[in-house]
């Protein structure tokens, strides 16, 4: 892909016309600044975006957010909407970590109060929130209980005492996708999932204690309970081995389903089936079960985090409670209604490394958010800022109510591994005042801030393009990783 193949539509919007390649069914659009476009052209991500434009049943455009980078099948940062009546669903388009997402909790604690306790707090969080490869959680669930969790997601956690009703109200879909069917998941997915509830995992997943260092929209920040100078906590993780297995199973099954339905694709990982086919519906029910798993998983982690705060800070700070700001998915296929060519139609929106960003007025939001729009949680890289944004009317018009999900990688893992040493990175971050607890030094090196794009530039683009609005910026104080 060359820059001259891409037309500039506005300051932050670029388009590859559907005539660029014979197999494209719709144009491909990319949100980026000049600098981020150069980054995107540095790997295969824009070619992957063009590949997504070949999927059957797509409406309008295949989209990519400014944190686009090379993935497998879809680029990370990709968004497509396929007609629910005649389009497709793609397990590869959702990815292996189904409902990987972010939760933000906020507090009344200020920096001076927490500073003397940060090191102990970080160690307690590391101890109470199991992380790393195949790590088992502290919950020993029976099959019946696990089945309930898969059908009810965060509602299961509420019944078990791991959540408050306010947590659920401030979770995408209330933390429960009703189309879930545990009968559509394999025995192996079940076995992998049942032991890992309440675990963080490895890779780019983390828990972070942050300082709210800037507020850009007082009204929205007040509605969320985000106050400058106070402490917040982020959780980034997904559906663990359960989701990975669901995706593995269905990507394999769909290898033959695609042929059955005569769907030709440029990449086997884009494999798909008609949404209303038996295969499409089976995957959707299994994906919803995995999404519920992830909502429950982040909820149990939030419970462990609250207990850790209480154990370390009770009696030492005025108020150690943590309330939920929001919980949002960034790897998911959702059935939603959107305006296309002046008509409201039902579409299956695939967001792969992209966040739902519904604007003001959306009925699924709790009353306090209906006027400001849905909170969007955008974690930065370790050591850099993270952002809280809100969805806008413009995101509903331009991007099927979607926006960016993070900073986006720019350096390969191989290069990061060659050039960065985990121990040295930890020392460097600790010098900057960031407490690190990590199970793996090579793993830490691959997630170094240098390996990521500038998250502030990504947020500048989405806010400049109008597909999200800035609310608050968070900076890291302690990072807990697998």
């Amino acid at each position: 892909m060359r820059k001259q193949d891409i037309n500039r539509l506005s300051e932050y919007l670029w388009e590859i016309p559907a005539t660029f390649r014979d197999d494209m069914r719709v144009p491909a659009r990319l949100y980026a600044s000049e600098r981020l476009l150069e980054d995107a052209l540095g790997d295969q991500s824009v070619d992957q975006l063009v590949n997504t434009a070949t999927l059957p049943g797509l409406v309008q455009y295949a989209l990519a957010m400014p944190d686009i980078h090379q993935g497998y099948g879809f680029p990370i940062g990709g968004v497509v909407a396929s007609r629910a009546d005649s389009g497709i669903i793609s397990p590869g388009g959702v990815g292996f970590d189904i409902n990987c997402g972010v939760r933000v909790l906020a507090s009344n604690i200020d920096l001076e109060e927490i500073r003397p306790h940060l090191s102990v707090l970080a160690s307690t969080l590391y101890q109470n929130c199991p992380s790393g490869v195949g790590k088992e959680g502290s919950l020993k669930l029976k099959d019946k209980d696990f089945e309930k969790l898969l059908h009810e997601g965060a509602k299961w956690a509420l019944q078990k005492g791991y959540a408050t009703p306010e947590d659920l109200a401030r979770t995408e879909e209330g933390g429960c996708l009703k189309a879930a069917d545990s009968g559509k998941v394999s025995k192996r997915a079940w076995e992998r999932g049942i032991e890992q509830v309440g675990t963080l995992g490895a890779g780019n997943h983390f828990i972070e204690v942050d300082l709210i260092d800037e507020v850009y929209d007082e009204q929205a920040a007040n509605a969320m309970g985000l106050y400058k100078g106070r402490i917040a906590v982020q959780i980034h993780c997904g559906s663990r081995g359960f989701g990975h297995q669901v995706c593995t199973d269905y990507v394999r099954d769909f290898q033959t389903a695609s042929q059955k339905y005569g769907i030709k694709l440029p990449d086997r990982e884009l494999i798909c089936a008609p949404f209303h086919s038996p295969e499409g519906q089976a995957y959707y029910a299994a994906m919803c079960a995995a999404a519920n798993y992830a909502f429950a998983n982040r909820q149990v982690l939030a419970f462990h985090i609250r207990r850790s705060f209480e154990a370390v800070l009770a009696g030492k700070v005025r108020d150690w409670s943590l309330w939920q700001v929001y919980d949002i998915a960034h790897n998911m296929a959702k059935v939603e209604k959107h305006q296309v060519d002046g008509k409201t139609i039902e579409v299956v929106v695939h967001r792969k490394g992209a966040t739902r960003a519904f604007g003001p007025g959306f009925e699924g939001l709790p009353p306090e958010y209906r006027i400001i729009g849905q909170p969007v949680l955008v974690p930065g890289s370790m050591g850099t800022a993270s952002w809280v944004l809100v969805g806008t009317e413009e995101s509903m018009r331009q991007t099927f109510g979607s926006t960016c999900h993070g900073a986006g990688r720019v350096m390969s893992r191989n290069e990061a591994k060659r050039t960065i040493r985990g121990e040295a990175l930890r020392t460097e971050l600790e010098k900057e005042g960031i407490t690190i607890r990590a199970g793996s030094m090579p793993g830490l090196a691959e997630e170094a801030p240098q390996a990521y794009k500038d998250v502030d530039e990504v947020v500048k683009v989405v806010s400049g393009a109008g597909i999200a609005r800035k609310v608050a910026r968070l900076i890291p104080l302690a990072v807990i990783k697998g």
Partner: protein
Amino acid sequence: MADTPSLPAWEEIEHTADWALRVRGEDLRALFENAARGMVSLIGGEASPAGAVIHRTISLHAPDWEILLVDWLTELLYLIEDQRVVFTHIAVQRAADFRLDAEVTGRTNGRFDKYIKAVTYHNLVIRQTDKGYETVIVFDV
């Protein structure tokens, strides 16, 4: 004329978000064996002296070679996650007619620095070359 140096059985290649391996083999049996060894070397891992030695015979069948390759590597990933197996021996005995027979030995309860979520089909094609077979496998991490 001096012999050209032989190409490595596997090598890591650049990928922004994930890991990618180029794997070669003089025949399909060797390709499948090298793919497994390459993936295991990417993950690393430290064996636990307290872990139990396990031995598994793996037999798989798939509609084509690429699906068989993903199935084979996925099977090993499952053992790594489920029992934290650090492999000490991987041998593919047969790869013919879209069937694979292999034997693996390892020790359970190992410690791992890296994690692979899944083996992907991204642009996965097994190609015949003048020296045997070659493919590139992308892993989701």
